[in-house]
């Protein structure tokens, strides 16, 4: 299991559009991937779950990946969050 931590960097937080970006990126990996905010842990490939996180700027997310490309998946998702998605 690969575990990474990343702090939400963009001002508006994990709102609808960044959530969509995260889900799309997660879908490109075969590993199982989860994102957690505090006690709330959701499937990173499910927009339904990721939208529920509603994480604001400065909130730390924990990304976990299990599978053949787990390391790449965890790295890529953590980097996406930390660079503030494609907005700032």
């Amino acid at each position, binding site marked *: 299991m690969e575990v990474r931590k990343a702090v939400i960097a963009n001002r508006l937080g994990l709102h*609808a559009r960044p959530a969509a970006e995260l889900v799309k990126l997660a879908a490109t990996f075969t590993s199982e991937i989860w994102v957690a905010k505090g006690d709330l842990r959701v499937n990173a490939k499910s927009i339904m779950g990721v939208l529920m996180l509603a994480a604001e700027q*400065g909130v730390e997310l924990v990304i976990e990946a299990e599978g053949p490309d787990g390391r790449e998946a965890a790295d890529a998702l953590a980097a996406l969050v930390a660079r503030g998605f494609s907005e700032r």
Partner: protein
Amino acid sequence: MARIFDGLPVSEGIAFGRIRVVRWGVPKVPHITVPPEEADREVDHFHAALTRARARLSEVRDETEARLGRMEARIFEPQLLMLEDRELIDGTLLYVRENRLSAARAFEWRMLELQALWVRTSNPMVLDRLGDLDDVLIRVLHQLLDLPEPGDLVGDGEPAIVVAKNLTPSLTVLMDPARVMGFATDLGTRTAHWAILARSMEIPAVGGLVDVSTKVSGGEEAILDGRIGRLIVEPGEREREVYEERRVQIQEWEEELEQIVLLDSVTLDGQPVELRANLDLPEEAQRAREHGAEGVGLFRTEFFVVGRNSMPGEEEQYEGYREVVSAFPNRAVCIRTFDLGGDKFPMFLHMPAEENPFLGWRAIRVCLDNHQLFRPQLRAILRATAHGDVRILLPLVNDVEEVVQVRELLNEEEESLRRRGVPFYSGYKLGCLIETPAAALEAAELSRHCDFFSVGTNDLVQYTLAVDRSNTRLAQRYNPFHPAVVRQLHLVSKAGRAAGIEVSVCGEMAANPLGAFLLLGLDIMALSVAWPALPELKKVIRSVRIEDARKAARKALAAPTARDVADVLARGIGSGVDLAAFSGRWSVPRSPDVKEVTP
């Protein structure tokens, strides 16, 4: 007899048309069970419906992109992903196979289950997105149950004001702006996805009308005023005339406001008035300048801390302050230190609930008790002084000692910056917000320790009258023209003048035409308002004479009631300012004592 519904302004503009009630809601799904041998057929039916829904939604997205732009089109991305979501699809299929439900019933169950999970988070960001969930639910159910597309619901060609319980993004964008004149909904706020789209489409809209969709039947004539959030059903001849005229006036007014940004902020008799903007975020600096701001009268810094679980660093703050200061070279930029408490508290302060948060541990009281939070902010602001005219503004100051304590902290931080060779400008100004009666009555003493005053009228009114301004039952009692408020303003202005320091006002009172007129009359020549209100404020300034304002202010000081104060001001401002033209959309207080801004 006209019926009037008041709600929230969602998208500006005035619309005329016949009401058309649109019920693009969740269709009634019959409870049908299917035997196991037919489950495969239901599964195929479901997949086919999803495919059709996806295709249709992609068209909607493309259409949106072509008509409104890429950003607007991206609003549909989450919905497209929902239509491929494994948790949604697998959950639905499980209900078909194990609970023997029809595809429609199974899908509805699964969606309601997910909706309940979302609602339980009670996070405003999640709740705002429930409209997207509805959109998907309705779209797929329409496919499964073979119901007509929403577009067909709207039009027979006659201009319509669409009334609905709530709107969804896809329904909104499918409306034909040539036939849909306006939207009026029971629910809905300015931040909902459909509201954003309505504004892009330039269709006037009013939300938050509670139950209007059940109070109209369709076919009634109506006028919708998106500027003040009002729907008039079956207007009389007079209302119709007034609004026809107003629509033309508003058009001219908007054009005039665009021109006014380029003109000087000066009264008819030549008195210049400093016009500044209140900012919540550094990114707003540019918009503020475009709207004619000559400085920043109030830069709120809470965005650095609210909703975060760690203290903001000095470096991050410095960047933010520098961005705003650099946007206004050689102009005053008043940075207010953290105004936490009351209704806004960051997680990392582990603030216990208070009985009376607005009389509690907040603003300067928090900062003086928590140097770990306060010192990095002071350092960051000091460093920003190297880039312009920075003024440090302390919130909720009650007495001289608080200012003295901050001054000591600043001296220490200056010393440490000097030692480290970090540049800053030692001629920066330190001042306080006058927002409690204590501070107003102590203004003369405070003026000896401050380089400037800024009157925060919102809190000053609230604390003077002991009226919580967020309490809607007290809305009529929250009155900035109360004689007790007017007299304190006078006191503060006098103390500032005697000490030779600038007195400015930041607060909604300055965005109200009569409020601005009174402040000028009290010799307060620097006003700061939310940046969208700047052009209208400049219009007031350019339409009045300072001598008239002074005369009216003298009378206002002698007036026994708030109503008398407002009357005196309305008479004094004369016909030079058409009070009815002001939009009132920047939460300018609308009290019964202020002349109504509506026709």
